[in-house]
């Protein structure tokens, strides 16, 4: 039914910047403190208090500008967005309006098998508000001002997105980039990254419809659910002969439905005007240029490097670049050892990530074990131990239970690569196998596998399979 309908989506993403202090005050910018702990006189809107800009936020915005292909504006202006709410102590939010710090950027995302360019209209710096808590007491609401003044970068896309999957890809690409350049911790659960979704529907090829804005979505799952629900809701209204009202919607996570919060008629008049307490931000080209080297390698740069220089498979390379900490761990191991990157990559995305997942660890927590890991991988790739033995030892190495070489000895897993010893074992294994030997010589390759298996069993798995193979072939061809 909805096959000839399409959705048109633009996203406003709020990324909380990873600064140590707030945008205009020296209070700590951190999550999870006791209520109203990170609040000073400026944050609480005391009389006569004045904002002082944290230049670190400007630097982070510039970095974002480079990463998202923005035009970085030398002149930007902080304005006041005026409205009353108890979690907004000043009675206004300081934001950028007419002159944002970044304009006209884009990123490329995957859409099916293709790349799609998503244009970004602008990104501006602003303060976050506090939190109102309505569910502690039946009569009173509570206010936690810890989040007041936390620096946000609001990234506003053009309506270039046309499916929930594209939105998810766009969000995760943004998240990945912002984490790479170290401006946002990407923690959606804690609200470090949240999205407002502007969605309208139209019949294919027709004019844009009236949009609704779904506020404050903080997980990929909710974004997807909200978009799918809202898409169908709008189609149903139009199919039923109705019209879409331009509303601000809330997504109810318990029912999976969107519902109207306020209509356009009741929208605020925010009475923006330049904040007279703050000077306009005027940046020199040198100040902007100085930030460029801090951007570092972006995911796409790394992907190209991994494919071209390290000959990784694309799928494996993508898993590694997905998060900067993966790439950091990978590159640390490469720099510390001579084991082939491709070999390291295979172990990393295989057993090492499995271990991290099973034990609910941070990738970063392995940063001090890279030497042990690569030592282990060295033993495997040099055939000192078998692959199987390697898998057995790895968790112990990752748990810090010992050095790889010691563990190998302790567990007696060292591979038998002494050809004299192996020859003896092989000769014993071939006793009474004349029939099979003849089969092999008659052209049956399958028999080789049987012999290798028999020999390995005789070495209790410790024989070097390659060497066994080689000696066997010599013996059998005689």
């Amino acid at each position, binding site marked *: 039914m909805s096959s000839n309908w399409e959705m048109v989506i633009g996203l406003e993403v709020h990324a909380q910047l990873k600064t140590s202090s707030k945008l205009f005050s020296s209070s700590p910018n951190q999550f999870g403190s006791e209520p109203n702990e990170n609040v000073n006189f400026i944050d609480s809107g*005391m009389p*006569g208090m004045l904002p*002082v800009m944290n230049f670190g936020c400007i630097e982070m915005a510039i970095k974002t500008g480079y990463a998202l292909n923005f035009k970085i504006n030398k002149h930007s202006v902080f304005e006041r967005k*005026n409205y009353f709410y108890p979690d907004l102590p000043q*009675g206004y939010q300081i934001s950028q309006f007419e002159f944002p710090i970044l304009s006209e950027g884009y990123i490329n995302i995957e859409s099916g098998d293709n790349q799609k360019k998503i244009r970004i209209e602008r990104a501006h710096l602003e303060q976050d508000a506090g939190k109102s808590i309505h569910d502690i007491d039946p009569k009173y609401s509570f*206010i936690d001002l810890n989040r007041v003044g936390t620096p946000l970068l609001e990234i506003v896309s053009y309506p270039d997105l046309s499916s929930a999957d594209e939105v998810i890809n766009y969000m995760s690409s943004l998240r990945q980039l912002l984490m790479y350049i170290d401006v946002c911790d990407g923690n959606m659960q804690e609200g470090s990254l949240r999205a407002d979704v502007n969605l309208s529907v139209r019949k294919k090829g027709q004019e844009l419809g009236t949009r609704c804005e779904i506020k404050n979505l903080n997980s990929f799952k909710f974004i997807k659910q909200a978009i799918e629900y809202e898409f169908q809701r709008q189609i149903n209204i139009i199919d039923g002969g109705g019209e879409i009202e331009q509303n601000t919607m809330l997504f109810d996570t318990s029912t999976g439905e969107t519902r109207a919060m306020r209509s356009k008629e009741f929208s605020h008049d925010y009475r923006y005007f330049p904040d*007279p*307490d703050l000077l306009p931000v005027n940046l020199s080209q040198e100040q902007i240029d100085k930030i460029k080297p801090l951007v570092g390698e972006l995911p796409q740069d790394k992907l190209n490097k991994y494919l071209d220089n390290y000959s990784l498979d694309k799928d494996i390379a993508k898993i590694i670049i997905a998060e900067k900490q993966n790439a950091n761990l990978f590159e640390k191991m490469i720099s510390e050892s001579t084991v082939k990157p491709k070999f390291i990559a295979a172990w990393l995305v295989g057993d090492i990530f499995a271990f991290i997942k099973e034990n609910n660890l941070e990738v970063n927590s392995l940063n001090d074990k890279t030497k042990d890991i690569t030592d282990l991988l060295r033993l495997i790739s040099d055939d000192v131990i078998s692959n199987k033995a390697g898998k057995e030892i790895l968790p112990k190495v990752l748990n810090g239970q010992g050095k790889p070489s010691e563990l190998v000895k302790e567990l007696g897993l060292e591979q038998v690569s002494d050809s004299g010893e192996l020859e003896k074992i092989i000769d014993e294994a071939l006793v009474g196998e004349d029939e099979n030997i003849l089969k092999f010589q008659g052209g049956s390759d399958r028999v080789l596998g049987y012999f290798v298996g028999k020999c390995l069993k005789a070495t209790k798995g410790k024989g070097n399979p390659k060497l066994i193979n080689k000696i066997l072939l010599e013996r059998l061809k005689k």
Partner: protein
Amino acid sequence: MKNSISQIKKALIEKKISVGELYDEYLAKAKSGNSNSFNLVIDRENNISSINDSQNRYDNGNPLPLDGIPLGIKDLFCTKGIRTTASSKILSNFIPNYESFVTQQLLNDGSIFIGKNNCDEFAMGSSNETSYFGPVINPWKNKNTQKDNLVPGGSSGGSAAAVAEGSCVASMGTDTGGSIRQPASLCGIVGLKPTFGSCSRWGIVAFASSLDQAGPLTNCVEDAAYVLNSINKHDFNDSTSSNHQREDYLIDINNSFEKKIKIGIPSDYLEDVSDDISNQIDNTKKALSKHGIEFVDVKFKTTEYALSTYYILAPAEASSNLARYDGIRYGFREDGESLDDIYLNSRTKGFGDEVTRRILIGTYVLSAGYYDAYYRQAQKVRRLIKNDFQRILNKVDFILTPTTPNEAFKIGDKLDPISMYKNDIYTVPTSLAGLPGISIPSGLSKNGLPLGVQFIGNYFEEKSLLQLAALAEKELSFNE
């Protein structure tokens, strides 16, 4: 003639008076005065350790620049542990836990605060009649209507009256559109508004952030230099605080100018003024001409737009600056059924009429559909006014104007807000330009009331401005 800071310091150094005796003298006047110039007089016990410390420094021969000097502080400066109300009901119970930058400098320099001076509510007014704590009464009387109580001017009316009646040696005021210079003129004292960006706004209850500036109200020009030396400092916590090199404003204050000085008198300011007012300009011109100072006519192109520009921009900023007084976290709250009711009740009952009027005007001029016609247009005109001043200050060293268009008037006389706003016609343009201006007493009106003239200098040229004002003061001094 009241004692100047340097005379008082001399007496303290020579032990003709102790810091405690000095303080008690002023405290007694502050308590007995009937000008209503204090919203709060600080208890003696709370100042006792400051008095003792100060006396010790005199005894040890190393007094600080303002050591032991009793000061009044406009009730717009946040003072740690001392109630700060902005003369408003909405802050009538507010005790800050911090000290404003400016008052901290004054404390660091050894001064002792007598109390918090009455002012117009949130500094909005030109007669000190909008205060929640009642009007301030000018110590001066019209010789023809002796029994009438006159306004001291505003908004720093309590500061001006307190200095004029001798209940403090000097007082800190703030000036947004004339709030230091106009009351100084109507009370016969000196009032200096420094260049915007000279003195930090940190800890001053904000009225209009792009215009507010702290400055002294004093008995003489030299005292203004004493106070300015203390308060004129760069403050990292005020983004609009200038970080230029400050000078010692006392060092040359009594010296004559080395170069030839040219002063412009804007002819457009003097159209339709009373004889009283034109006499002030004539007297000043005559007095300074004797010192070889040249006077030329200048003409502004933007004067007629200044008041309307000011009464768009200042209320616009105020409407936003005063949004924080919502009854939620501190200050007066009138409860209600809903959140909107709490806002409505607290703000309706907490703010007086003039403040409410300006919040409404400010909200209107910033509203969607009106912003371009009012706020944006006013910003453009403000730029033209600045350019106009710059053009004239390229030709002359200073500008001389009347401070006010009239003498002090009867309390309750000007009920119409527009005629009240016109009282600031000579001071508002300077504020919009951000330039420094000083009002000094220049003579008495036919009714025997004090009047002042205003000198305007170039940006951050307070030093030569004070030097000029001191020179004029010597020639113009009058007896009460």
